[in-house]
């Protein structure tokens, strides 16, 4: 959208720079003047909040790495050392650990925002796909980070999750040994996880750049989902209107963040992770971090063989499928109308999907017995039915409500 640039270099130095590396022009176009729909609500501040989360993880993480020792005999103690001895280490460590949870809370809101307002639909498919890729990398990063303190949950999470790869026919077992660097999770595993945990956030940062690039080609979607028709009437410059709104959103978000970090840094974790990893004893109740629970529930739900596919591989296929299916969402939803506000039937199914997702979260933490096992199967089935049956059908049978003719009309009402 370069035609919106109003930049004229203010002095000779800026002019000199502009002819060589037009970085000021670029920033002005994309961070200040960028035309942004004027009806964005607070759900749209989560993009900026996510950038803030990534920065917090990188800054606190690089500091933690200055004091952390990636060795099985020292890792656990070095994290305790950070928490007890390093100046301010207690807060830096808790901001990093709590930060991972807040990061996921924000990303789930961001994803469900996109699902409700149809932000994945044309022409924003690539934008959506890059987002799912970021989500996948975040999961990998958080998982490997969780292994670093080398507590009981760390070690058993590493064991269970790497074991997922052993389900792949033929190459499964050699692949498992390759990933772990041994016959079991041990020092080589811890070392490589540390190396990758340091690397991946920077890869995420690079994909975030692509994500924003892909956003700035079509521009933002908005709560009514109709395209910008008249830049003057429908949009506002990003700065100061949305820089301020985003900043306010960040401040609100930092309130619960700080509450957790200062007053309850361990409430989101598990006490078992304050016992050093012991390869001979699995804790009685192992559960992943809350942000993995829905997918974990799906993994566990498949405890029966499907034709020639055994229960283990079946669980892995459904587990992987539950995330990969998100890549295809732009093509599974056949409705042309973006915003859920104008889709009377979709709206109900959307909320049903949200409830089902929360139920899966609950079931992922429940013991694998009795009624929970049955419920997990039902919720898993519904998760896939939503994407594979309901969304494709709704687009055909639903009559959407009339759309406003423009963003401006939806904000100011029809001109009389």
């Amino acid at each position, binding site marked *: 959208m370069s035609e919106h640039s109003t930049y004229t270099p203010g002095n000779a130095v800026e002019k000199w720079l502009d002819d060589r590396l037009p970085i000021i022009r670029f920033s002005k176009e994309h961070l200040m003047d960028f035309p942004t729909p004027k009806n964005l609500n607070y759900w749209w501040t989560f993009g900026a909040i996510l950038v803030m989360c990534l920065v917090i993880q990188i800054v606190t993480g690089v500091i933690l790495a200055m004091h952390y020792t990636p060795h099985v005999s020292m890792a656990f103690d070095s994290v305790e050392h950070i928490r007890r001895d390093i100046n301010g280490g207690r807060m830096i460590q808790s901001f990093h650990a709590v930060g991972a949870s807040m990061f996921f809370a924000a990303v789930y809101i961001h994803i469900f925002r996109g699902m409700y307002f149809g932000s994945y639909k044309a022409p924003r498919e690539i934008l959506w796909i890059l987002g799912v890729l970021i989500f996948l990398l975040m999961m990998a990063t958080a998982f490997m980070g969780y292994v670093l303190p080398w507590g009981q949950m760390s070690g058993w999470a590493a064991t269970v999750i790497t074991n997922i790869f052993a389900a792949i026919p033929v190459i499964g077992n050699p692949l498992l040994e390759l990933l772990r*660097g041994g*016959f079991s999770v041990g020092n080589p595993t811890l070392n490589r996880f540390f190396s990758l945990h340091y690397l991946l956030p920077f890869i995420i940062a690079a994909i975030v750049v692509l994500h924003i690039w892909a956003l700035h080609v079509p521009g933002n979607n908005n709560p009514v989902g109709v395209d910008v028709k008249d830049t003057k009437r429908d949009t506002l410059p990003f700065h100061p209107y949305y820089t301020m709104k985003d900043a306010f959103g960040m401040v609100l978000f930092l309130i619960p963040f700080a509450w957790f970090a200062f007053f309850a840094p361990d409430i989101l974790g598990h006490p078992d992770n304050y016992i050093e990893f012991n390869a001979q004893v699995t804790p009685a109740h192992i559960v992943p971090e809350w942000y993995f629970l829905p997918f974990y529930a799906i993994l566990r739900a498949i405890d029966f063989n499907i034709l020639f596919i055994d229960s283990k591989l079946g669980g892995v296929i459904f587990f992987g499928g539950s995330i990969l299916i998100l890549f295809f969402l732009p093509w599974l939803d056949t409705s042309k109308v973006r915003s859920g506000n104008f889709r009377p039937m979709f709206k109900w199914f959307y909320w049903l999907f949200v409830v089902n997702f929360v139920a899966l979260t609950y079931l992922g933490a429940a013991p694998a017995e009795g009624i929970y096992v049955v419920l997990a199967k039902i919720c898993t089935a519904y998760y896939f039915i939503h994407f594979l049956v309901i969304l494709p059908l709704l687009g055909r049978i639903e009559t959407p409500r009339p759309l406003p003719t423009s963003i401006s009309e939806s904000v100011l009402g029809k001109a009389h």
Partner: protein
Amino acid sequence: MATQAHHSTTRRDFIFVATGAVAGVGAAATVWPLINQLNPDASTLALASIEFDISAIPEGQSVTIMWRGLPVFVRHRTQAEIDEAKAVPLADLKDPETDEQRTKEGHEQWLIMIANCTHLGCVPVGESGDFDGWFCPCHGSHYDSAGRIRKGPAPKNLVLPPYEFLSDTLVQIG
């Protein structure tokens, strides 16, 4: 056209394909060591075999020892457990194996198995579950008194490591 077609299969094309092929093989040969370094190293492989004295384990008890970084159950089974395992019809089993196949002849009281659940690798809890064997708390797999999978998401019986009895009281694992 005909002359062009003639020209299009020249030595230049051959050189082009040959160069591409060599570059491809070269790239693969460079990448492989970069991946192979992830595989178990020499010091890990060196821990391949151990000896263990079982005489101190009374009937009805088990110990967990380590072999190649993996936990291994050594269980001294009671007669009731052995009888129970033998009585199970093979048709009831998800991964059919007889009790004889799970133990060494003349040493039926000893059950030696890798202690990682065949589902996702947790260590099951002994003397529990619905089949008087092991119960894996992670996702609810039940194993019987011969370590065979009976219920839950695990696909296979607990794995037997390669082992042999050097004497009545000494086993070599690996």
